[in-house]
């Protein structure tokens, strides 16, 4: 095996069970997935199918019940600076300014100990570059609660990128943003992933977002949580918004939506709907 063929992330026979009282939830069953360096993979699926659980296990925030996750061939044993995480909300530090949030990791021992003075200088440069890249120049001294949701997520992404992670894990990072802001963020994150050659594992509810961003879309299914199918996205690496109107895009979207519907275990009960419609309101 050559160096090039070692996957960045290798997920093998991953199981995760949660005991809650006397009942046991199988959040993940025999998940297998291999992600190449600089690949962008999105996870979609019905609510409760284990997307967040899978992401958190890769991030080292949750232990697996069995199976392994390896990064560059080495099994992980907890969180690490090679894998940064961006959450949906509440992860910024409200007592720090935008710049201080982004430079937070520079305060930690792990980063201080290895630093020579030229590293420190380079880090300052990187922080500035990230601030400019994310369009945060005019709010550097602001506190997070003075920013809009979209701006806050830019700060969260910049902070995650600060330590040069090889892998960026994102759990519905744009779930709370409006459609326009979201489109801007999509192009931004694509730009960053190409620029930094970051490997991305990205959870979303939005199938269009999943296709637009990814090289591959992983469809998961619930009860028990599992990987149901993997779709290659037939679009060139450099994406633009017009591609969302192409035949390939729409066909894939239809296919994935059907897959989610088929596995969600929720059907529209027409008899019940009729009953609801006929029943008087008072």
């Amino acid at each position, binding site marked *: 095996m050559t160096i090039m063929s070692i996957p960045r992330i290798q997920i093998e026979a991953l199981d995760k069970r949660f005991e809650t009282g006397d009942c046991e939830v199988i959040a993940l069953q025999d998940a297998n997935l291999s992600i190449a360096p600089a690949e962008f993979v999105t996870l979609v699926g019905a609510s409760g199918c284990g997307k967040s659980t899978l992401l958190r296990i890769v*991030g*080292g925030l949750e232990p697996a019940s069995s199976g392994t996750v390896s990064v560059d061939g080495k099994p992980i044993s907890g969180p690490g*600076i090679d894998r*940064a*995480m961006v959450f949906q909300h509440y992860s910024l*530090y409200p007592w720090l300014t935008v710049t201080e949030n982004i430079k937070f990791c520079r305060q930690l021992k*792990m980063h201080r100990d290895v630093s020579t003075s030229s590293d420190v200088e380079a880090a300052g440069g990187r922080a500035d570059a990230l601030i400019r890249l994310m369009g945060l120049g005019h709010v550097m001294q602001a*506190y997070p609660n003075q920013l809009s949701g979209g701006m806050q997520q830019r700060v*969260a992404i910049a902070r995650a990128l600060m330590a040069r992670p090889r892998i960026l894990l994102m759990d519905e990072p744009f779930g709370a943003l409006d459609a326009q802001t979201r489109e801007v963020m999509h192009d931004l994150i694509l730009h960053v992933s190409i620029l930094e050659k970051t490997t991305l594992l990205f959870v979303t509810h939005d199938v269009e977002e999943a296709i637009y961003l990814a090289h591959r879309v992983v469809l998961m299914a619930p009860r028990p949580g599992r990987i149901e199918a993997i779709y290659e996205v037939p679009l060139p690496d450099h994406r633009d918004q017009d591609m969302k109107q192409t035949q390939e895009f729409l066909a894939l979207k239809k296919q994935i939506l059907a897959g989610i519907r088929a596995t969600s275990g929720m059907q529209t009960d027409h008899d019940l709907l009729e009953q609801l419609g006929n029943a008087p309101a008072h």
Partner: protein
Amino acid sequence: MIDNTIIRRPSWRIRGNLGRRTHLLISLAGLLLPVGWWWWISAGGAVDPIFLPTPPLVIDSAWEWLRDGDLLGDIGISVYRVVTGFLMSAALALPLGVLIGTYAPIKAFFEPITDFIRYMPAAAFIPLVMLWVGIDEGAKIAIIFIGTFFQMVLMIAEDVRRVPMEQIEAAQTMGADRDEIVMRVIVPSAKPAILNTLRVTMGWAWTYLVVAELVAANSGLGFAVLKAQRFLQTDKIFAGIILIGLFGLVTDQCFRWIHRYSFPWLYRK
């Protein structure tokens, strides 16, 4: 028909705002009306001043207390007791509360006993405190400590537990170790809530003053109230209670000011 005018007026909107001046005016009315009402009832002559002295009588008695008695000394010793008891309880409750809110084994060990003791009335500890600590200053401070410490620990633990998990996990993925997460994330994140807890428990410390000065005291605001009761000096009782209330209010306002000053990000929008 629903009357819509009440909804349209911003002051009566649910969680609506008032202008600064209107706010001040209404607050002042809320303070002055009860005083006016008190004055009116007490000056009317229907009630014996032994039961309800008039406001001027109360002010006179406070003045007399200042001139002939030892009002400043009483204030000094009471402030000393409240502040010392409060600081001792804060000094212990802060680290313990942070630990209980952070580590499950420490929570499992300390929480049940703390929860249990906090329901015991501080006043009932007086005989024990006298037996163990004696009857000098230590005893009074101990009562204030007992009255505030157990509540404070549990409230601080709760403040710490309310730090969003995302803030902690974000630090973990940036390479923070356990100590760094406690000192650089949990403590700064919980600080505003903790200061609020301190403010509230400081208020309770003031309310325990009279209980504390039941223990063989011969000075202090609470003691003065108790002594005035023995001689049926209702005006002095009023003066003492109002003074304790005022000092409570002043410390409360100080805490609020410190809060604004220390956590500017909470007030900037």
